[in-house]
Structure formats: C-alpha cells, structure tokens
C-alpha cells in the first residue's frame, strides 16, 4: 500500500530533509559567529557568479556524478558500497598508467583508453569485496572500508617507490604528455562563440559523466539486467525464487559500481592535475554517498545533487578564502545531508505519512 502519492515520495521527503540540513547548517554558521545569509550570498557569488566559479562547480560536480552513480547502482542491489574512495584512487592509478606508458596520438583516444583502464582498476577493486560478500559472506561494508585503507597504502607505495620520477621530492607521478591533455570547457565552448573561463578545470569529462548518467538510467530501468538488479534489491528471496542468481547480481552490480567510481579519475587526474598525486580523490568517493542518498539513487537526482554539491564545494572554498569559516563547513553540511536524507529518513517520512493518511480519510 502506498500511503503517500508519488510526488511526495520523490520531491517532498527529500526537500524537507534538505531543508532541515540547511537550517542546521545555518545554525552552525551562526554559532561560530558568522552571518549565514552573507555566507550563502558569498557562496552563490563565488560558485555561480562567474564562468570561473561555474567551471569549478561543474568540475567538482563531475567527480560527484561518477561517485554518486557508483553508490546508486550498488544501492539498487541493496549493497552499500562505501569503498568509492578506494576505487577512485585505484582508478587514478589506471589513468596514470594509461597516460604515462601508452603513447596516444590524440587526446580522444587517450581518453577512451583512460576510461577503460580507470574503470577496470576501479572494477577490480570493487569485485574482490563483491566476491567475498557473494561467496564467503563477508559483510561488504566492512570489506569496502578496509579496501579504502588498503588502496591508500597501495597508492602511497606506488607513488613513493615506483612511479615517482627520479630526483623528484613529492610523491607524485611525472606530468602526463601534452597529447593526453583534455580540452577544458573553455576549449570546447570557444569555437561556438561562448567565452568560458580559461583557468577553470571543468573539462570534457563532464560530458562523459552526463553520458554515464544516461547509460545508468538505461541500464537500471530499460534492461533485463537492471530489472534483475532492482528485483534483487527489493527482495533477495523473491529474486532467488525467480531464478536470479544472488552471486551474479552482487558481482555485476559491484563491478559496475566500482568501474563508475574508478572513472572519476579521468576528471580529477587526467583533466585537472594532469599527473597522479597523493590524496587526489579528496573525499569525493564519500560525497558520492550523500549524492546518491539525496538523488534517491536515480541518475537525474544524482545529476542534480552532484551539481548542488559542486556548488557547495566551490562555494565553501570561496568562504574559506574570504571569511574565517574553514572549508570543513562543507564536511558538516555533507554529514547533515547524509544524516537527514539517509539515516533519519523515517523521522521526516513517518509524520508525513500520518498527514497523508488523515487527508485521505477526510477525502472519503
């Protein structure tokens, strides 16, 4: 029985949760002695007031689209992939290997190659926990957390001991060759007469991310596999009875999830830094959790939530630059979003359901 109409389920509940998170964030800003309205203004100005701001907002949003989709796909199979961070780190390793050791003639081929390697590395890093969950019954949340730490150690080792150019001090790879530098939004938009900031890092990966959103939508709602993933997510026993193999679905959903998280690296490693550095992911893997929860695991929702978080990230950076509010404010907002749209979902839902029930009784 659906107590609430669909629009309330899809729009009203997330909106109220978000509002609660926003009010609390405002109170936090007030409590540390700053003006929330002025802060919001500064954030909007800094993140959306110029093509430079937009360029950063969209750059961050691209990261979050990939990781948000990654978490969403796993959520549809009722798997909580908390390992997006580690998978994105490994994806970065894949991108670095693709860019440094294969002489690509053109960036477009380089991008395709990097997508394949980044996806493959991320997929493998997710497939191991998936296999352990499906075959050996180890809890996927714990194993993916452990794999985040192991990934950090692997990356640290690779950068310090293997990939660091001789004589270089900081643990990072050499710069990628000129041929694999991705065109930025400035390069893409200039020929059609739109001037876009040259300094902003948003690049062609944004288009890849949007394509990924569409493909994930097609996969989940328009294919047999997507149907099986959703069926398994709704009820494992019913899915089993219908002849859907839990092992297969767990493996496939997590592999796709890991590949998506890994692909984030084409944006931050190939598109922005143009070399692999330590901590290149900057927590984007975890923000994917907030993005997926807020977007209700729907690609369109993820797209919107990713842009909102891109705005928060860029706006937060501006805040840290111009006021005494540290960047960590974004982490707090992210936590509140996860708390209200994820864990305290029922706190918003239960009273709403009661209201709608009362309305329905009144109507009859």
């Amino acid at each position, binding site marked *: 029985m659906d107590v609430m109409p669909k629009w309330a389920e899809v729009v009203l509940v997330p909106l109220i949760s978000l509002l609660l998170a926003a009010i609390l964030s405002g109170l*936090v800003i007030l*409590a*540390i*002695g700053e003006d929330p309205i002025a802060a919001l203004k500064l954030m909007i100005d800094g993140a959306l007031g110029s093509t430079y701001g937009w360029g950063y907002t969209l750059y961050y949003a691209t990261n979050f689209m990939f990781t948000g989709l990654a978490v969403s796909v796993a959520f549809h199979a009722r798997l*909580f992939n*908390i390992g997006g961070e580690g998978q994105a780190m490994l994806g970065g390793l894949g991108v670095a290997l693709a860019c440094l050791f294969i002489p690509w003639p053109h960036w477009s081929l380089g991008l395709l190659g990097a997508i394949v390697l980044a996806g493959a590395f991320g997929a493998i890093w997710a497939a191991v926990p998936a296999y*352990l969950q499906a075959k*050996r*019954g*180890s*809890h996927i*949340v*714990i*194993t993916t*957390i*452990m*794999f985040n*730490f*192991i990934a*950090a*150690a*692997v990356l*640290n*080792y690779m950068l*310090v*001991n293997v990939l660091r150019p001789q004589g270089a001090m900081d643990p990072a790879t050499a710069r990628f060759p000129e041929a694999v530098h991705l065109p930025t939004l400035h390069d893409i938009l200039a020929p059609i007469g739109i001037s876009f900031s040259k300094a902003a890092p948003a690049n062609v990966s944004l288009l890849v991310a949007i394509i990924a959103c569409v493909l994930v939508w097609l996969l989940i709602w328009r294919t047999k596999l997507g149907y099986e993933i959703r069926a398994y997510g709704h009820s494992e026993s019913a899915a089993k009875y219908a002849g859907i193999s839990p092992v297969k679905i767990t493996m496939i959903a997590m592999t796709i999830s890991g590949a998506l998280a890994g692909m984030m690296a084409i944006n931050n490693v190939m598109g922005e830094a143009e070399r692999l550095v330590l901590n290149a992911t900057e927590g984007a893997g*975890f923000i994917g*959790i907030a993005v997926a*929860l807020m977007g209700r695991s729907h690609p369109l929702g993820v797209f919107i939530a990713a842009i909102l978080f891109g705005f928060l990230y860029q706006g937060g950076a501006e805040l840290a630059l111009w006021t*005494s*509010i*540290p960047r*960590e*404010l*974004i*982490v*707090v*907002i*992210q*936590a*509140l979003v*996860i*708390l209200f749209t*994820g*864990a*305290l*979902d*029922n*706190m918003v839902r*239960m009273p709403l359901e009661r209201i709608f029930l009362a309305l329905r009784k009144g109507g009859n």
Partner: protein
Amino acid sequence: MDFFTLIQILDATVRLAIPLLLACLAGLFSERAGIFDIGLEGKMLAAAFFSAAIASMTGSVWIGLLAGIAASLFLSGVHGLASITFRGNQLISGVAINFLAAGMTVLIAQSWFSQGGRTPSLSGAERFNPINFPGALTTTNEVKAASPLMQVYSELLSGHSLLVYFALLTVPMTWWLLYRTRFGLRLRAVGENPAAVDTAGVSVVGLRYAAVAICGILCGIAGAYLSTALQAGFVKDMSAGRGFIALAALIFAKWRPWHALYATFLFGLFQALELRPDVIEAVIGMKIQGQFLGALPYIMTVVILAGFVGKAIPPRAGGEPYVKER
C-alpha cells in the same frame, strides 16, 4: 636488537593499543546489542577535541574527560535516534556521524582558538600525566643500564597514564558484565534474537539505548586518551583511522572481550613497528614497506572475514532495526 629496544617497542605497543582497545570494546557493546557502529571514529574524534578544548579552558583534565564523554554520548544519542527510534540505516548513520565529527571539530576549534583547527598544547594538570611506580627509574639512560627485570618494570609497566591502567581493567569488567550479569545476558540476546527478549517482557529499545550509551562512554574515554594522554592537545583528524582499526580488531576478536585485548595489542604492535623501520630491518634482515605494515590490520581483517582463517560470525540481529509486532 637488544633487550631494551624490545621493551621500548612493547611500551609503544601499549600506548598505541589503548585507544584501539577502548574503541574496540565500545563497538563490542554496541554490536553485541545488534547496533552496527561504524561511527566509532567520529565519536573518538569529537571526544578528543572536546577533552582537549575543555581541559585547556578549565585547566582540569578531569573536566575535559567529562566533556569528551559528553560529546561522544551526544553522537551516540544521534546514532540511537536514527537507528533505534527511527529504524534508519545504521551504517549510513555511522557514516554521517564520522563526517559530522570531522567537520565540526575543525569548525569549532577554529572558532574558539583560531589556531588552524587545533587546540593550544596542554601541560601540567591539563593532561593525564604518566604515573611512575615506586622505585621505577625514569630517565632513558638509567633504564638502559638497569637489569632486564628492572627495565620491564620501569619502562613497560610503570610510566603510563591513569587511562592506560583503566583501559586494561575494562577488559575483565566487560567480560564480567557481558557473561556474568543479567544485563549482559539480555544485551547479548537482544543482538541475536530481539523478538525473544521482547517476548520475555524486556524492553529491546531500552537495552539497545543502554548499549549505545556504554559505547559512547568508552569512545569518549578513548578520544580523551588521544588528545590528553597520548598527545598534548587536539589536531585535525587526530583519530587517523583508529576507529576503523578498532572495528577491524572487533571482527578479528569475533566480538569477544579478551580476544579484543589480544587483537588490539597485535594491531598496536604493527603501529609501533611502523614507527621503527630500523628495528624491522635489523631483525628480519630485509626492508618491509611501512605502507604494508600500516595496511596489515586491514588486510588481516579481510582475510579473517573471508573465512580463510577461522570464521567470524557477527551477532545475528546486527544491523536490523527491531519492529515490534502489533
């Protein structure tokens, strides 16, 4: 490697294992009652900050400790509200708590002290200082020259802060509470079969809140230890993944108190060895990557979880919200 180096490493092991032990026992109470808690890290971090901040403001480490416990209990309350009262996803709630602590500690630290997200360094009565046993030698040179027994006494047994000895006491206390009291029996039962406990007329919600509160207190002490005993003051992200290592240790220990002691000391030893690469090289004659030692607890946990070496079976009702039948 001489005997004194060994003692030094064991001494560092004790220091580093204590926060893991406290957090691990905290997780043990929560998970034995059927509430998964991946927010140990956040609770420790919040407690570390508030202990150091309040200790520095009041000049008393004891008031600091209470503040740390209160901060940790508050986060436990949020976790309880989300996962017990509103039957939300316990894992998502834990993730939120970790981020909340990571962000809020820096935000408040910056607002209160303006020192780039740290507290002023603590000294004197603002810290838990080492307790020297009667007759124990205190300077390194004296200890080095003493007999092996005296070295063990002076370096390994003596000279820790009060919280270290307290933490070691919590192990038998936890064992006794869980296996020798009615409360413990019910707490374990509520993690395995809450419906049975409910049928017996005992409040599932009450028991689970009690477990989550104990978890909060222990995490609070662990956090206070980090910033007022192990180090002198709070720095950003100072829990440094210890909450997750504690979680790993909990699985390694298969949710049993005495085994939690062994597991956390083993992982503490890895951390101590990570700081002394020279010793490893001298002993086994080859270099081991520091990164490998750092990742070893995680790798071992994955292997244990995979059931290749023994099988770790979590409490049966873990992670499931309890819905009372109507």
